[in-house]
């Protein structure tokens, strides 16, 4: 992965962390990584649920909509990762949800957020 793509991804995750904080959530973890993969953001939502957030950031629609790259299989893998996170942090059985976010950064530096909560 090029550093350009890395910084794009990091920027998107930062944007979403701010977005969640502004809505009263607490960020519990970010870029939690185990062998099976990585969770971009873990947040405690104002509703009391734990949200596992996958952030996809793109600079254009040239390769399709950012959320299109999350297939059903990928979403299921996210769920396995979420269960692993809950087990690791001794809060298995807590209500949780899988959220997916598409961030589109336009050339003038502005960005658009598409937040899809509880996609599974």
């Amino acid at each position, binding site marked *: 992965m090029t550093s350009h793509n890395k910084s794009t991804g990091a920027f998107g995750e930062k944007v979403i962390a701010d977005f969640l904080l502004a809505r009263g959530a607490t960020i519990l973890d970010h870029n939690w990584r185990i062998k099976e993969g990585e969770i971009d953001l873990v947040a405690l939502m104002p509703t009391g649920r734990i949200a596992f957030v996958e952030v996809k950031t793109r600079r254009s629609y040239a390769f399709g909509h950012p959320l299109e790259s999350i297939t*059903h299989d990928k979403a299921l893998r996210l769920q396995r990762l979420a269960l692993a996170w809950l087990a690791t942090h001794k809060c298995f059985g807590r209500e949780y949800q899988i959220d997916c976010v598409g961030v589109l950064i336009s050339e003038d530096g502005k960005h658009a957020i*598409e937040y*899809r909560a509880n*996609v599974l």
Partner: protein
Amino acid sequence: MTLGRSFGVALVGLDGHVINVEADIADGLPGYTLLGLPDAALTESRDRVRSALVNSQEAWPNKKVTVSLSPAWLPKSGSGFDLPIAIALLAASSELPTEHIEGVLFLGELGLDGNLRSIRGVLPSLIAAYKAGIRTAVVPWVNRLEAQLMSEMNIIAMESLTQLLRWIRLGERDVPQELPLTTQELEEEFDFSDVAGQAQARKAAEISAVGGHHLLLIGPPGAGKTMIAQRLPGILPALSREEALEVTAIHSVAGGLTQRSALSSQAPFVSPHHTATRVAMVGGGAHVIRPGACSLAHRGVLFIDEAPECGPGVLDSLRQPLESGSITIARSVGSVSYPAQFILVLAANPCPCGKFTGRGRNCTCTSVQVRRYLSRLSGPLMDRIDLRVHVDSLSRVELTETELGESSKTIQNRVREARAIAAARFKDLPWRTNAEIPSRALRTSFLPERAGMNFLHAALDREQITARGLHKVMRTSWSIADLAGHSVPILEDVELAYGLREGMPL
């Protein structure tokens, strides 16, 4: 609105079912689910619809899309649902005025560029929709002629999705819609005046056209069997509007309207090659049960050249449609009935080498081969053939004859008059041609003159004719009488009918 609706039609044989197409757009990961037993071509509609929408400058909803085709239990097939799916999707994702969507039937396959492509079965789909109370239909421009036959409905022909959406949004139509509905003149491609000589075969063809009798032509190669068969549709009376609609509907389902004009009133002529399979002959198919040659020949002529060369069972598969005038095909997806009322014309060589004619001097076949050859035409099938004639090689006299034979037009006029006489006789009865008279009615109300019956009874006593054969001869004699203008078949008519059926030893 996140829910959109439109109407499409699913065809099972010639019967259509109006299908409710519903599209729901929900939050969630982008995805597309198509419900309602779609087949492969219909599952692929997702990618066609998507590209068509994008290339028509419409937005594709990057959300969780669920499309349902109900009733869900009915297996659906084909690409005709592209358009109703696209409309339902757009109604769900954007603000489309419902005025031109509610109660409107949409038919059409979408190209990736958003153009509307032709589909099979437009006419039967429209008939089904009309029966279900739908009065307006959007069809592809290419299918407009066929669609216009359904004159009771308001037909909107469109070339592309963009055009259609302009009509739905703004009510603007940039294509003239009301087309003059003209019936095509009969094509004069084949005319009976081209046939030299062959007086007996010509007469037999004429009788066949009057009464709907099946015909067998036996003769050496090059004698004109095919020529005569090809000219038979030209002397059949033009199809009535109802008959033409019926024929067009069958050809539309089969996808063969490219060869046949939608408005043609000429009786169809279908001549499958003798290598045709049983399924090709009677119809069939795994997902879509398509009509076979015998249904394509409905209200016309089914001509099978080199009939003894047909595979085993192929000709005999025609026995049921010959008897009942329709064919029912059962497959795992369901069972379908197609009409199949046709005049069967078989042509055969007299022997494998084809030269066993006249004195048979050049024939190289053994006598066993000759006997076996025609016995490949099974007894039960031959029993249903009323007219069996020899088409012999032309003599010098016949070939040098400069005067042309009668034209198809002249013969057709005679046939039409004779059919009118028969129709008047059958005014209050359910059948229309002489070949259809049931044997019971034949014995009670449609007896030829006493002298004719005496002749037939004598033949029966001598075991020269079976009971079924006797009835067949009686039917043919009515057609001959109608042509000759006799109110009841006289002895001469019966003798001619007998000669045409039994005159040739098989």
